[in-house]
């Protein structure tokens, strides 16, 4: 019988290796897998690349992981939230690399990785500093830039409920990047509030089918 649940959080993050590209869910705190990120802080892995919309806030979650020195690079759309002090200190001291990607392009590049699209032309960033150096093409009279898939070794995401097969549902706007990151990573680890029986979730309502989920960590057990 398939059971994707891991027994503890140490096991959940044991699948992450040095140098991994980690897709970290959430928009601000909504949907951020805080516990998984903090468990990762306690491991020996290093030289991580983080892909996430923001660069952490305060001293917890992603910010704590960055503070631990394990993050060599962050790929994100908006690292300048008022609370992103740890990131900004690291950046100012040249302790972390930053790649800023427009939010829709960030999301679409991960979708391309998950959907087997080799590259795509988007009008976003054409003619701007963020489009500099990229291949461009005029399509239907509009300048587009060519963007490539952004694939993760690991996705760390947060959800509301899972079953043992890895079917998951989210809560309100905490859904945000997670369904796409789950598709775009080789291995996806989800932190959920509740494990339910197989068949308990409405099949019309399952947002991420188990095919995209590898390990489930139930947080409030």
């Amino acid at each position, binding site marked *: 019988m398939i059971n994707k649940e891991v027994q503890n959080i140490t096991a959940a993050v044991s699948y992450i290796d040095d140098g991994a590209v980690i897709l970290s869910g959430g928009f601000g705190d909504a949907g951020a897998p805080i516990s998984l990120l903090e468990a990762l802080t306690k491991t020996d892995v290093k030289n991580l690349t983080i892909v996430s919309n923001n660069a952490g806030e305060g001293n917890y979650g992603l910010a704590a992981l960055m503070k631990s020195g394990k993050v060599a690079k962050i790929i994100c759309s908006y690292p300048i939230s008022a609370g992103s002090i740890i990131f900004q200190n690291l950046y100012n001291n040249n302790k972390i690399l930053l790649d800023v990607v427009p*939010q*829709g392009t960030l999301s679409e590049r991960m979708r391309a990785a998950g959907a087997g699209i080799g590259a795509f032309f988007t009008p976003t960033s054409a003619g701007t500093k*963020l489009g500099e150096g990229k291949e461009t093409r005029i399509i239907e009279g509009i300048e587009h830039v060519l963007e490539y898939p952004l694939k993760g070794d690991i996705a760390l995401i947060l959800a509301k409920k899972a079953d043992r097969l890895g079917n998951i549902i989210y809560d309100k706007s905490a859904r945000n*990047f997670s369904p796409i990151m789950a598709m775009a990573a080789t291995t996806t680890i989800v932190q959920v509030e509740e494990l339910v029986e197989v068949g308990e979730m409405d099949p019309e309502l399952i947002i991420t089918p188990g095919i995209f989920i590898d390990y489930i960590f139930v947080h409030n057990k």
Partner: protein
Amino acid sequence: MATTPKIVGLNRKQVAWRIAQEIPEGSYVNLGIGSPEMVANYIPDDREIFFHSENGILGMGPAPEPGQEDGNLINAGKKPVTLLPGGSYFNHTDSFAMIRGGHIDICVLGAYQVAENGDLANWATLDTTKPPGVGGAMDLAIGAKKIYIMMDHLTKDGHPKLMRNCTYPHTGQGVVKTIFTDLAVIDVINKKFIVRELARGLSLEDLQSKTDAPLSLVNNWLTISPPELN
């Protein structure tokens, strides 16, 4: 006595009110982070408008009552909001498909500068000591059917923000449709600034003196007549 140097200008709430009047019933609207969020407060009661938030909400409602905040229900500025009946949630990629695919009727954004050809600069200054951050600005700029700009006519230092050419980094090229400032309502038409409304008592000459690019005034121009809002 408190003084304000702009005796004829609209205050921020009045600019938000003016923009709200411009939004027809049934529109799907994205309001940028900051001042543009105020536009939602002034939609006429009899108009049904649908607010989109790029983090995956359509049909976003106002801030919740104190104590009713839900960390999983936030807007693009990461502030607590509510969902109206008929609202829905979706993932980020679907949300930006709505934006990039031209499904959002109107997006109201702030700006550092707008050029007469419609170029928009609102994501980065010339200060390179700070890390850059773009969020969804570039996607919104190229994606929404109409880009409305809500901004002060001048910078805090008194420099013009309506330019012949943007000196700040571009967010998008030729994307701005209309600019709503404390002093005027200005359309971008055929790469020119065309003034269609002026604050009470303001002349085109006054406005031109505060504007880098040349302005034209339409024949049937109006005076902006906002209600008192404090």
